[in-house]
């Protein structure tokens, strides 16, 4: 008798595989342009704005361009990786607390880590929204290779 049923575990692994596939296709520019709902419909950018594009540029070897898109793309990428590892761990039959739960509990208990996270969050929130106001377009808009925003940001860098 496991914590998760075998069907659910298979579902977790299938979901993790789907995420990896979509992430790969997105980073490879195969998928159509992704429009962040925050920036597109709510007209403000979240701290992760530009992360997809930053990783695209990072994998293309353009480190400066990556940091220009989102200076904290590695931090948000780390949390995405934790969430993905959490999913895989559950798929492999691990019980609670999972790796993701351990991480958020650890950050929540550590005041310094918590403060760093909040400062990063707040500064990025201001930074990306100031850029949004100046350029008129969110940084994360258009993850495809030929998207106009990508070109405009590339021009900036």
């Amino acid at each position, binding site marked *: 008798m496991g914590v998760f049923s075998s069907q659910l575990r298979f579902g977790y692994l299938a979901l993790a595989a789907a*995420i990896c596939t979509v992430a790969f296709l997105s980073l490879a520019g195969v998928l159509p342009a992704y429009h962040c*709902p925050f920036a597109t419909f709510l007209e403000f950018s979240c701290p992760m704005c530009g992360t997809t594009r930053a990783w695209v540029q990072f994998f293309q070897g353009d480190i400066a361009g990556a940091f220009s898109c989102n200076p904290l793309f590695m931090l948000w990428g780390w949390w995405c990786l*934790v969430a993905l590892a*959490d*999913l895989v761990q559950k798929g492999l039959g691990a019980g609670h607390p*999972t790796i993701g739960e351990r991480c958020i509990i650890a950050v*929540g208990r550590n005041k310094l880590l918590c403060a760093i*996270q909040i400062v990063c969050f707040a500064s990025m929130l201001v930074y990306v929204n100031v850029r949004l106001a100046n350029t008129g377009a969110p940084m994360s808009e258009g993850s495809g290779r030929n998207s106009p925003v990508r070109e405009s940001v590339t021009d900036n860098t």
Partner: protein
Amino acid sequence: MKQEGKLGGQTQVLDEAAKRLTTLDQLLNGAGGGVFPAPQLNVKRYFYADLNNTPIGPFSPEELQQNLVAGTIRAETQVIEEGGTAWQPYSNLIMQRLSASTGGAAVPPPPPSSNPKEVSLGYAILWFLCCVPIGFMQWGQAAKGWVWVLIAIVTSGIGGLVGIVDYWMCFSAQQKRKLGEWEFFPRN
């Protein structure tokens, strides 16, 4: 002797324990003084799942309690009634027995709004904007968070708006109760 016809059901016999006379029928049926207490045939017995999820038992509730005191089992250890099909935490069994022993009235059920791991608004916003699946993970719905991410990507962001509504509803609901892992758009 009764079966041999030597004694009738109404034959008076001396109940030594009660120091009084009673009929043979009353004596045999246990009526009028409870000379022969009815055996406890309906005592429930339970198995518990050990660390390897192997059923151990059966144990009477009293024996389970002794195991709890000895540290062999814990409140969250899964137990199942002999012949039953549904496992449940041992704490549920304790509550049921407590409720039964007090007539089901003295021990109030836990309030529906209780959730000891309630997430505050600040953390809910922080983690959602940092990483959506981590945000959902706060109330045990990380996999659902990933589903919303995929939906948002596939629908070019439109599905993300629906995800935001779901997130807000989940945040509101988790302040009052614990959410299921795949509970979408929960109401309070």
